[in-house]
C-alpha cells in the first residue's frame, strides 16, 4: 500500500486531521480498492451471468425444464428447510449459555462452536463417511437395523448441519455479550419465566442478527459442495443438490445449463446480502430512535 505523506497545510488547519485524509491518498486508496474489487469480486459474478446467457434466454430457460434440475432445486430447498431451523435453535441455545453465563470451559465452548468454520468441508465429509459409511463406526449397526443414512438425503442434511452450525451462533454471541443481561434480569424480577424472556426480551433485541445469521446459514446450506459431494451418491434425481447438479451439468458438456443453475445460487447469495443491507439499515434506524430520547 502506497501511503502518501499528508501535505502540510499549516495556514488553514482543517477541523479534523486524520491519517489518510489527504486528497491524493484518499483517491488512490478508494480507486485502488474499487479496481481490485471490480476485478476479483464483481467480474466473477458478471461472468456467471454472461456465460449463462451466452446462447440467449431460450437456452437459459431450457436449463430449468430438465426434471433432474427441478428435483435438485426441490432437494436443496428441502435440505435448507430442515437445516436452517435446527441451526437457528442451536445458535440461540449456544449464544444464550455463552453470552449470559460465565462457567469453566466457556472459552473452549466458544472455540468448539466455531470449529466447523475452520475445518475443510472435505474433512467434514470424510468424517461423516467414517461414522455412517458401511465400514464406519455406526455402519454395521445401521445396516443391521436397515437405516439408510449414507448416500441418501439424511447424510446430505447431516453434512450441511455440520458445515453451517456456527453461522447463527457467530452472529448472536458478540451481540448478546455486548447487550448484557440487564433487561433479562429485570424481566426475572418482574416474574417472567425463561421462555417468556427469550421470546419477549432477548429475541426481539437480537432479531436482526438472528435473521442475518439464518439467511447466511441458508445461503451456505444451499451452496455446500465439498462435504455433500463425499456423502451424496451422485444419483441423478435422487441425491443431487444444486451445487452437485452444477458440476454434473458442467461435465455433461452442458456448460450453459451449469451456469444457468449457478445463476440461481448466485441470486440466492445476492438476495441474502441485499437483505443484510436492509436489515442493517433498519437496525441502525432503531438504534438511533432508541438513543434519541436519552440525549
Amino acid at each position, binding site marked *: 500500500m502506497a501511503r502518501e505523506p499528508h501535505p502540510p497545510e499549516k495556514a488553514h488547519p482543517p477541523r479534523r486531521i486524520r491519517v489518510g485524509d489527504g486528497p491524493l491518498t484518499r483517491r488512490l486508496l478508494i480507486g485502488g480498492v474499487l479496481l481490485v474489487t471490480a476485478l476479483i469480486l464483481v467480474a466473477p459474478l458478471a461472468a456467471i451471468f454472461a456465460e449463462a446467457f451466452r446462447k440467449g434466454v431460450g437456452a437459459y430457460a431450457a436449463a430449468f425444464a430438465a426434471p433432474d434440475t427441478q428435483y435438485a432445486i426441490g432437494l436443496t430447498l*428441502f435440505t435448507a428447510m430442515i437445516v436452517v431451523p435446527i441451526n437457528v435453535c442451536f445458535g440461540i441455545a449456544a449464544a444464550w449459555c455463552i453470552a449470559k453465563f460465565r462457567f469453566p470451559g466457556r472459552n473452549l465452548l466458544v472455540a468448539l462452536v466455531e470449529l466447523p468454520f475452520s475445518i475443510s468441508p472435505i474433512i467434514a465429509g470424510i468424517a461423516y463417511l467414517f461414522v*455412517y459409511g458401511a*465400514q464406519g463406526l455406526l455402519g454395521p449397526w445401521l445396516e443391521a437395523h436397515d437405516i439408510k443414512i449414507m448416500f*441418501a438425503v439424511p447424510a446430505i442434511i447431516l453434512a450441511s448441519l455440520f458445515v453451517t452450525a456456527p453461522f447463527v451462533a457467530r452472529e448472536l454471541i458478540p451481540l448478546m455479550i455486548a447487550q448484557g443481561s440487564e433487561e433479562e434480569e429485570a424481566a426475572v424480577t418482574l416474574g417472567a419465566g425463561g421462555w417468556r424472556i427469550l421470546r419477549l426480551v432477548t*429475541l*426481539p433485541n437480537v432479531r436482526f442478527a438472528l435473521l442475518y445469521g439464518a439467511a447466511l446459514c441458508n445461503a451456505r446450506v444451499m451452496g455446500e459442495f465439498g462435504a455433500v459431494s463425499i456423502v451424496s451418491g451422485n*444419483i*441423478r434425481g435422487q441425491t443431487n443438490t444444486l451445487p452437485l447438479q452444477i458440476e454434473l451439468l458442467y*461435465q455433461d458438456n452442458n456448460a450453459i445449463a451449469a451456469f444457468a443453475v449457478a445463476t440461481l445460487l448466485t441470486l440466492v447469495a445476492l438476495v441474502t446480502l441485499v437483505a443484510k443491507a436492509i436489515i442493517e439499515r433498519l437496525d441502525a434506524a432503531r438504534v438511533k430512535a432508541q438513543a434519541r430520547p436519552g440525549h
Partner: protein
Amino acid sequence: MRPSRRLILTSTLAALLAPALASGFAPAAQAQEQPNQILNASYDVARELFEAENKQFEPTYKAKTGKEIKVNQSHAGTSKQARSIVEGLEADVVTFNQITDITFLADKGYVAKDWQSRLPNNASPWYSFPAFLVRAGNPKNVKNWDDLVRDDVKLVFPNPKTSGNARYTYLAAYAFALEKFNGDVAKADAFARKLLSNVVVFDTGGRGATTSFVEREQGDVLITFEAEVIGVKDAYKDKNFQVVVPEVSLLAEFPVAVVDKVVDKRGSRQVATDYLNFLYSPEGQKIAAEYNNRVFDPKVAEEYKAKFAPVRLVKVEDVFGGWANVQKTHFASGGKLDELFVAP
C-alpha cells in the same frame, strides 16, 4: 416483538412439514416388495448412452410385465462407484468399464464370484478402446502412441488412480511400448512415465477430462474411449475436432453385473436381470452402437460398420497375463503406476 413470533411460527411450521416432505423425497427407500426404481451405477462418460438405454428400457419393460419401472443413473469413475457401493450406495446393477472394479465388489461379497459367466461375452455387452481426439487440422500431426511422448505434445486424460478409462489409456500405451521395444520393461516404463508427464490436467473422471479439453482448451490430444471421442467430435461440430484411431490399441470391455447383495435385499433381482439382458438385445445393442460403442450382435455390428475405423486390438490377458496380474503389478498401492505417476 412481532417478528420473533412469526419466526417461531415459521420454524414450527417447517418442523411439522419436514417429515411429510422427507417421505416424498425418499420414495424407494422403504418399498420392500416391488421396487419401482432401480439404480444403475455406471462409468463416467456413459451418461448419455444410459439415458437413451433407460428411455427405451422403461416402456419395453412395462409392455412386457405391465409394471412401471424407473432406472436411476449414477456416473463417476468406476473405482469410486465400487467403493461407494461397499460404503452403502444401493446400486442394483453396475455397468462398469473395468473388470477389476467388479472383481473388487466380488471380493467384498457384493457380487457373486461367477459374475463373468452369467452373461455372454464375459458379461460385456459392448466394447471400445482408447483413441485420440485432436484439434482442427491435427496441428501436432498425432498419428500413433509414440507421438504422445513427444516433448511438444500435451495430453489430457483422467487420473488413472480413480478412472478406469485412464487405466486403459495407461495400459494401451504400455502395451504399445512393450511391443515397440520387444518386451524391454525398462524402456516401456520410461515410455509410460513420459506419457504421464505430458498430461496437463488430471480430472477424476473421463468426462471431466473431456470438458478440460473442449471447454477449457487444454492440451493437444484428448485420450479416451473411442465412443466418447466420436461423441465429442459430433457434439462440437463447429470446433472441427478430428478423431485419430491409432494402429493398435487395447480392448476395453464394459462389464455389467447384478449386485447380488443389493437386489436380494431390495427384491429387485428380476428387473435388474431383465435390464442387463435388455442391453444385449438388438434394441439395446443398437442404442449402444448409436452412441459409438462397438457391439457384439453381428447384425447390428454390420449395420454400423461404416462408422468405425479399422484397428488392431490387443487384450489384457495376452499382453499382461490377465487383470489380476495387472492389478498386482501396476495398480495396487505402491505398484508401478504409483512409481511412474509421481516420480519426476
